[in-house]
């Protein structure tokens, strides 16, 4: 059912996304690769990245799904405004996201001062990494789930209500399963975005090995350190990409099987 004319632009689009990654492969110093990838300099940030991105993704789900429901079921005007607000963080250059988070949660920030009095300091902690990742990844989840909710419509929810099912039951047993594909897509997107987050983290969380140095920060550090030879940065990127692809493919096929 695919119009044949579409195959050409589709291939170009795919090439645009995939070829640069292939180009990256050419830059790899293959003999030195295994040693590098097994070094603590590679594995520690990778572990931290996977851990923080997972936590952030869970946070995105907990906060984002409700937000998506509220937007999807609001009056069109309210929904339009909320949707715009949710999308704004996407526009922020990474650095600005960091400044914004600092101005809120940093020492001297509006909330930061209050927290400081309570003995809580967020910048330079792993919590800051999670917050920065959640901040940048949340819009993805919200937009994806909201779209799915809107497309799924309320027909089945209405049927469930006429059977006497309360809102909680309907949400858990009807709404969520119906938007499962959108939910999964949103989860994948926000996990990917959290995994790749660099800018806001760098400024808001800093860069301390084992605490806040995630993979992207390690890559940047390696890049800055190596000068023109981007070998190490490329190798680390490759590791990140490989891990991401494996996770995405695993989730992708599970997703397909859910849809069947």
């Amino acid at each position, binding site marked *: 059912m695919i119009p044949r004319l579409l195959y050409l632009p589709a291939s170009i689009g795919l090439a645009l996304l995939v070829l640069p990654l292939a180009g990256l492969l050419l830059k790899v110093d293959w003999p030195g690769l295994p040693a590098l990838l097994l070094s603590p300099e590679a594995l520690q940030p990778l572990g931290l990245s996977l851990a923080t991105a997972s936590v952030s993704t869970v946070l995105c789900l907990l906060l984002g799904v409700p937000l998506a429901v509220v937007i999807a079921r609001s009056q069109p005007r309210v929904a339009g405004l909320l949707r715009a607000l949710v999308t704004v963080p996407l526009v922020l250059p990474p650095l600005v996201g960091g400044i914004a988070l*600092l101005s809120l949660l*940093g*020492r*001297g920030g509006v909330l930061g001062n209050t927290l400081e009095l309570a003995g809580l300091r967020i*910048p*330079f902690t792993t919590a800051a990494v999670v917050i920065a990742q959640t901040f940048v990844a949340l819009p993805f989840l919200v937009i994806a789930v909201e779209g799915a909710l809107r497309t799924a419509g309320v027909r089945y929810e209405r049927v469930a209500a006429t059977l006497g099912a309360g809102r909680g039951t309907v949400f858990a047993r009807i709404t969520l399963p119906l938007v499962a594909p959108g939910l999964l897509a949103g989860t994948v997107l926000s996990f990917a975005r959290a995994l790749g987050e660099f800018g806001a983290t*760098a*400024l808001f*969380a*800093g*860069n*301390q*090995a084992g605490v*806040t*140095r995630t993979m992207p*920060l390690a890559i*940047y*550090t*390696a*890049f*800055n*350190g*190596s*000068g*023109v*030879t*981007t070998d190490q940065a490329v190798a680390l990127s490759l590791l990140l990409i490989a891990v991401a692809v494996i996770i995405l493919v695993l989730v992708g096929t599970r997703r397909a099987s859910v849809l069947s």
Partner: protein
Amino acid sequence: APSNASDAEQPATGLEPQTLSVYAAASLTGAFDELATLLEHENPAVDVQVSYDGSSTLATQIAAGAPADVFASADRKNMQPLGDDALVGPATLFAGNTLRIAVAPGNPLQIETLQDLARPGVITVLCAAQVPCGAASASLLANAGVSLTPASEEQNVTAVVTKIAGGEADAGLVYATDVAANPDRLQGVTPAGADAVVGHYPIAVVADSAHVEAAQAFVDLVLSPAGQAVLAAHGFLAP
């Protein structure tokens, strides 16, 4: 040479109308803006565009064929490979930079020495060892026998400055030029042995440059007494 309108129209001694592209390390921002204006003043036909970024970013771009005419790096490490590949002409050192302990104005925590940076309760941030200011910081601390775990190893010196000025961190090691550029927000403390650790800035004309003559003129200006005076005014040492 004094310049006037007729010189611009008839560039017998001046330069052809052209745009000169200078790639300079971010820490050179204030000084190179002035030097660019100076060159434009002397050669009204020339428009100088300076791109500032981290030295490694600029070096990577030049290696990839960026249309740069002059490259001024904050360290030799980023200039060296370009020279080895003959992507730039011979490099000359044109400035040096030393480290200062940066603290908030008034120095509320009374930080006077490198040892104070390791004091419990003091939030210290440094540049990552991989970037020029981080490498310098590491040797400075090693020379003084101080070992400390910074709250963060920033990717560039600007990030260290931001953290201290914004109050996120109490102290850190930055360049003297950074302190000079932010007199209202930072106070500098000169640590013992600072003079022993100097960062050297090389400059070179890019081999592919289409404006070799103008590029050389800019390099010459940087190395000239007038140029050196501008750099000194921004806190740089002589090379």
